[in-house]
């Protein structure tokens, strides 16, 4: 067991990630994760602005990043990470993910198999940038 992150996420946010991933298929989707009181309470869909093939790349532009920060402030939450989908690929970070990763962010990856969302996993970049560590993702139903 690696020491990654133990992340709790509202089930509604998980549903939103899956909905967005299915809608964007065969393209990758991406979005921001907002946290309040150590729980991810909201998944904010963002535009995939990549100029490469959107079936295997995503890009959250600086404008979109700032939008996510603004949204977090409005919701009295914290921007803690991002999710993206891997259409017809496993929910594991790729070399490309690693090359472009930021530290101290939670990366949630959802695999989409032939249009249907499948596994959801959670990752954090190692301090030395050499790899991602997998974390636990716990779903919580809002009480």
């Amino acid at each position, binding site marked *: 067991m690696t020491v990654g992150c133990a992340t709790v996420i509202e089930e509604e946010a998980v549903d939103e990630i899956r909905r967005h991933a299915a809608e964007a298929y065969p393209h*990758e989707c*991406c979005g921001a994760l907002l946290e309040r009181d150590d729980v991810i309470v909201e998944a904010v869909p963002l535009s995939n*602005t*990549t*100029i*490469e*093939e959107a079936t*295997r*790349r*995503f*890009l*959250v*532009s*600086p*404008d979109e*990043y*700032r939008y996510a*920060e603004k949204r977090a402030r409005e919701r009295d939450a*914290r*921007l*803690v990470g*991002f999710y*993206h989908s*891997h*259409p*017809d*690929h*496993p929910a594991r*970070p*790729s*070399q*490309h*993910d690693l090359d*472009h*990763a*930021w*530290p*101290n*962010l939670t*990366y949630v990856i959802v695999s989409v198999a032939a249009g249907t969302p499948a596994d959801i996993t959670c990752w954090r970049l190692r*301090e*030395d*940038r050499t790899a991602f560590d997998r974390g636990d993702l716990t779903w919580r139903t809002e009480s």
Partner: protein
Amino acid sequence: MANRVLIPTPLRPYTGQREAVEADGRTVGEVLRNLTTRYADLQRHLYADNGNLRSFVNIYVNDEDIRYLSREDTALRDGDVISIVPSVAGGSGAATTVESAELTNEEVQRYSRHLIMPEVGVEGQKKLKAARVLCIGAGGLGSPAALYLAAAGVGTLGIVDFDAVDASNLQRQILHGTPDVGRSKLQSARDRVTALNPNVRVETFETALTSKNALDLFRDFDVIVDGTDNFATRYLVNDACVILGKPNAYGSIFRFEGQASVFATKGGPCYRCLYPEPPPPGLVPSCAEGGVLGVLPGVIGTIQATEAIKLILGAGEPLIGRLLLYDALRMRFRELKLRRDADCPVCGDHPTVRELIDYDQFCGIAKPAEARVAAAPETESEATVEELKASLDHGEPLLLIDVREPQEWQICRIPGAKLIPLGQVPAHIEELRAESAERPIVVHCKSGVRSDRAVKLLQQAGIMNARNLKGGILAWIDRIDRSLPKY
């Protein structure tokens, strides 16, 4: 001088969770160096091993991306706020697509001069192999662009054109050779590209680009190279690129001058930010009317290919927000700054054009049906080449005026014509008025566009017995005197 630097969430653990820190420096680079000296952990997250800022690190001075300023040399004034704003990128990729873009031994050999440069390398060459670039037009600009893109190893090259090769193309359109005259441009383009690099998949689209097909054509490509020769198609290419978010490597040429830029990138300007309105029809002559130095599209089309390749590699400074002007006669390059227009109807903050429109109408070009209706009452002000020939043969009194330029006159002329270039017609109005009292006037040019304007000028001056020779000297050569050279 101390400036405030705003730190994004993922980097705050390295600044003691501070959202903003003060750092000294006269330039952005100095401030960042002082920042990373003080907070050493920032170094590896902001800078790649080669010492360059990582591609997904964006630095803003106040609200301006330093890529549009002087990058790390951007000078700072007191009170400027520097923001570090992440872009977050990633994606699957590693598993199948990169594998399918593995380089063969033949490719490694072919691209070796790319592979040994760190800015390209094996990774960059694979990106090129996986890339799909669409060239609009296989003409002057499309020729060098397509050839260099193919040589560079762009995996899929789309080409849109519907013309056949004409002898007058060969002076500059190096995709086509003398034996290709009369063939479809797409066929000869495919042959040339494949001979140069058989690894390239060529996808040809033998069609005029229209508002109906543009989005479908563009959708599957990563970068669009605009090699069009008219305003209506140029606006169409621009709008389609903005709507789909595809970068447009733009170029245009006229006589000895050319320009190039990259439009329709996220946050960058588009062609409409530069030219909100097309010029009135007929004001700016086409290359067919005004001529073009044959090597000029070689320079501009090659710049377009360079920009397309840089966009694919993610290397260097793209020609975004800059209009490059080239003057071949004086051999000078100049650069103008361009900004996205927040009020731009296509890429602005509140776009009013959200789908493709009728670009002929936008550019003031009447459709054939409408043109016929509009022209109907004016048929009296037109003459056919057969009518002109009959009049000349019968020795009828007639003044034939050629409104082309002297250098065109040197190539070929209709016997008995008098040369008054279009620009000098207004100065000759009184003389022509006197002449017109004696005999009717027929005006001609190369194809009938400029002479039509001359006839209108005469009519406005009250000279009503002037007629335009339909089809110009080209029609004369086709139907009356085939011994004259066509140009």
